[in-house]
């Protein structure tokens, strides 16, 4: 890593610079968004398509293009493959090998960090959009006095309380004080985490009830599934291990211990099935990525007029 002077695109921790950058970014952002509203409707979709394509192309090329150390290896290599690659791609490899980049970088790599920072900024805007959406929906519900307006009011109360507790513990005159930390702790650990854990633990009750009511052996497939489920479930937990702990730990007979049967099911038939699913998923994801990258995706969301 080379030492550099003031880096415009780096994240700045100095307060004055940070405030200047925030103000500048807000101004530029506002100007940019205002500018976008002047783009003719017909040109909006092509504009998004071009930006999407360029961004996708950048990340694909940065990932796929060889790094400096590979270029050096190919340029020094004496075999036929290296000679062929040199003849075909020497125009790319020679300047790369002679560059001042790090060994694992190519020409596009130095911008990755700046783009990641830019991404964080864009993500910040999406949070603001999400927030605006929530305020809009719940505000409308309260103003209209709709049936469940009380829950909307609760949203505003919860949002304001959590935001206040967070800001008080990290900013302003109460920063670092025991009282503000205690309020934040109460809001997070005492309330948010407890509610989250309680919500999630309810699933166990629903699962047990649903499994009891719906899991019936109606076919050979259901039988195989149930037997495997029982073996895997019990083979994973101490009581299952205890159930067959009387079987010797060595020799052929040890294969019949529940934990070994469970491990075999998970590492053999399950891994094979998972691999098959993963191949399918990967092909599907690639097709989907291509459709989005090339703006070929169709449907209600993508065909809406902007």
């Amino acid at each position, binding site marked *: *890593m080379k030492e550099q002077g003031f880096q415009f695109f*780096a*994240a700045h*921790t100095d307060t004055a610079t940070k405030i200047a950058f925030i103000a500048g970014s807000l101004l530029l952002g506002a100007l940019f968004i205002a500018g976008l509203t002047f783009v003719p409707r017909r040109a909006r979709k092509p504009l998004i398509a071009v930006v999407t394509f360029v961004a996708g192309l950048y*990340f694909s090329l*940065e*990932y796929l293009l060889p790094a400096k150390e590979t270029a050096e290896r190919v340029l020094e290599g004496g075999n036929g493959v290296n000679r062929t690659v040199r003849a075909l791609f020497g125009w790319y490899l020679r300047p790369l090998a002679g560059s001042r980049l*790090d060994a*694992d970088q190519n020409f596009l*790599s130095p911008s*990755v*960090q700046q*783009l*990641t920072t830019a*991404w*964080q900024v864009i*993500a*910040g805007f999406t*949070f603001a959009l999400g927030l605006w959406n929530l305020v809009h929906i719940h505000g409308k519900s309260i103003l209209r006095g709709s049936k469940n307006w009380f829950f909307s009011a609760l949203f505003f109360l919860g949002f304001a309380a959590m935001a206040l507790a967070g800001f008080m513990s*990290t900013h302003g005159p109460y920063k670092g004080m025991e009282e503000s930390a205690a309020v934040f702790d109460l809001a997070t*650990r005492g309330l*948010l*985490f*407890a509610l*989250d*854990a309680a*919500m*999630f*633990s309810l699933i*166990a*009750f629903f699962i*047990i*009830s649903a*499994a*009891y*009511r719906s*899991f*019936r*052996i109606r076919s050979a497939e259901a039988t195989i599934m*149930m037997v495997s489920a*029982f073996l895997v*479930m*019990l083979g*994973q*937990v*101490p*009581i*299952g*291990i*205890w159930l067959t*702990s009387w079987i010797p730990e060595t020799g052929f007979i040890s294969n019949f211990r529940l*934990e070994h049967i469970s*491990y075999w099911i*998970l*590492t053999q038939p*399950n*891994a094979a099935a*998972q*691999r098959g699913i*993963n191949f399918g998923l990967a092909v599907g994801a690639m097709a989907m990525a291509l459709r989005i990258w090339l703006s070929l995706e169709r449907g209600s969301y993508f065909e809406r007029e902007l």
Partner: protein
Amino acid sequence: MPFFERIQKLDRRVMYVLLALVMMIPMLRPFQMPTVVTAQVQGVYDAVEAIEPDQIAILSGDWGAGTIAESMPQTEALMRHLFRRDIRFAILPFAPQTATLMQQTAERLAKEPEFKGKAYGKDWVNWGWKAVPMFAFLKSMAKNVPGTVVQDYQGKPIESFAAMSGVKTIRDIGFVAHITPIGNLSIWIAFIQSVYRTPLAYAPTAVMVAQGYDPLDAKQIVGMLPGLVGGAQYEVLLKQPGNGLRWSNSLSFADLLMVGLIALANIGYFASKREGSRKG
């Protein structure tokens, strides 16, 4: 209502009470049950043992309070091992709650007499949650750790921490454990493990365990802590019983209850079917 039909229509409130009881009793009256350490858990332990003293480990995660019963024992066991080996580590949260929960876990462990002297900034650092897609962060971090992380969870410059000295690129990271209830391990594999061969361990929740055996077989991960039981097995390796072992007893009885109830309902189903066909 005939008996066999009745056992198929057990009141759900009875099931809820039974489940609550089998979950609570082992927590209130802890006892020891046999636990076998599997090869996948041993693999994670061995990878932590193999970290060079000058390297840093990353404990990455995106879990929240919803999966605390599984993810917390996994995190705690890994942190305990790293503390014991005097290996500094970085908390890399990909969700806001994870930053707080993992930090609290580390702080709690640092207060134990065994780890006297362990302190934030020196022995561990919290990189804080970043609102950025995981792949973009990992790509950037691999080539420039301080430039990507910039500040810790409290906004302090990351390079000011002793725990970060000499940590420049992914080559300085000797081990990564991804503790998650989400199926996003493939991002770590695609952008870090397959490119830089950094030892990667996976600590999923039990429902996600099935996905881990493919990369485990392909040696893309060094090992796996399967859910709460994985944490419990790691505690056995550390010879330090904790929440993992205690809570896995509750899990045992919950599993047994579920198996029993499903079996009961199926007995009722077959018996009433046979009775029905006999009646004509």
